């Protein structure tokens, strides 16, 4: 790749949003493959929170986590020289 080529903005956005979305989806499936919400949060299940809510909140929480990780990767990938020259 030539040095001059800039990475388009859409690629930057996608590189943060998309891998985090995919990995959190996989992580959620693996997690709930092993545990059912009733095993992990028996009190909440007993109080009537639906499984759909567990899956959704878990997914969104995992996405937030992986998103943070992707954002940090993106942050650390920025050239160091810009700040340390």
């Amino acid at each position: 790749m030539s040095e001059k080529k800039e990475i388009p903005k859409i690629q930057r956005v996608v590189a943060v949003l998309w891998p985090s979305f995919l990995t959190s989806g996989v992580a959620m499936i693996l997690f709930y493959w092993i545990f059912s919400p009733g095993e992990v949060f028996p009190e909440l299940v007993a109080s009537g929170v639906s499984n759909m809510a567990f899956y959704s909140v878990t997914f969104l929480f995992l996405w937030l986590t992986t998103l943070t990780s992707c954002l940090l990767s993106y942050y650390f990938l920025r050239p160091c020289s810009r700040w340390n020259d």
Partner: protein
Amino acid sequence: MSDNDNTPVKPEQDSLYAKREEIYPREVHGIFASWRIAMVFLTLGLYYILPWINWGEGRQALLFDLPNRKFNIFMMTLWPQDLIYLSVLLIIAALGLFLFTSVGGRLWCGFSCPQTVWTEVFMWMERKIEGSRPQRIKLAKSPWNLTKVIKKGGKHLVWIIFSLWTGFTFVGYFTPIRDLAAAIPSWDLGPWETFWIFFYAFATYGNAGWLREQVCIYMCPYARFQGVMFDDNTLIISYDEIRGNPRGARKRGKEKPAGKGDCIDCSLCVQACPTGIDIRDGLQYQCIACAACIDACDDVMDKMGYDPGLIRYTTHNEVVGKGRHIFRPRIIIYSVILTGLIIAMLWSLATRIPVSLDIMRDRNILYREAPNGDLENVFSLKILNQDKKAHNFVISLEGLPSAVLDPDQPEIHVNSGEIVNTLVRVRASEDAIKNRSTSISLRITATDDKKMTDEEDTRFIAPADWFQK
């Protein structure tokens, strides 16, 4: 793809950070366009219709019933324990994709990828509302007036309605779609159903309406590694340079100008391309192999009275005169592995014993003393009956001689599709226990069918201080 050779870098690639050039694909007609439309009807037809089909009384044929943790797949019901089948299915799909790709190039991308088929539908709506490519370009350049507002607004409205229907259908694969439909008029949907309908609708609208080819270029991992799946015998869409060059405009019906090739440089292949590339520059990672350029070019060749196929599906070897080889080692290896996996999976599904046992220990109390002085371990058993009828199960114990099950242990009745939790006490006398932790296994067997059986290993734990002397 090839950054190290001497091909000149196109100016628009140098300024990628600039705003994306809007692409207005020209509508094409021809054999490949017909195939693509047929595939849109087939794939999206299946997508929108399948959740409405029932298999058995009131049982949705395809339902990934997350709340109840079971998947209906036509006559089968899979449980979380069967995730292995899903994994094997994904491996089969991936291998199938590799096989298809090495033979036929990115056929998946051009004809059956959801991104392509939904974009196709969105572009059709766009054409119906905003008109042909020149009309759309003119509309985009024109200042905002009532017509533009109506056309643009109308297009987005239609897109949004279609997206919402798509989102609704998507959620219908996870929540019974008839209940969902019944809840729509009174807007009685659960909060998360509502959220996912809008989420998926937004994704459809954004991906098929706005992002389009950028999804293929920036989000699709497949496009990035197409190079390793292609070889010189892979069918790709190629411009026949030998025949086409040097290019040049000319009048229809006149003799071909001396020294010119068949390409009249009309640029229709570029205008038809949904990803905005020029196929005459050779194989590019942006090419989704939709073959719109082939249709466009064949049409022109026909009008000029030239043979079709200046742009065509062909292999590198064929272009350089080495002929076509379909059966090559890579294809045979993929096919053998794929066939093996499919047979293994079908065999495993056919011989699957529809009962499963899970054992969990009580983590707080590892052991306790029974009234008669024996040592006792308590296990929590989860019995899942995936069979179509109810069964009574008896529990048996292996691995620790002289250990016994609680004699009061009754038979356990489990209805079809039900999970029953039960506690099991295992007792052993002190002198029978030789180790702090002994491997034992518990087995359940249906009283009416000895083949309905499953076994799981666990450990019998004794106090640590017994063995520290």
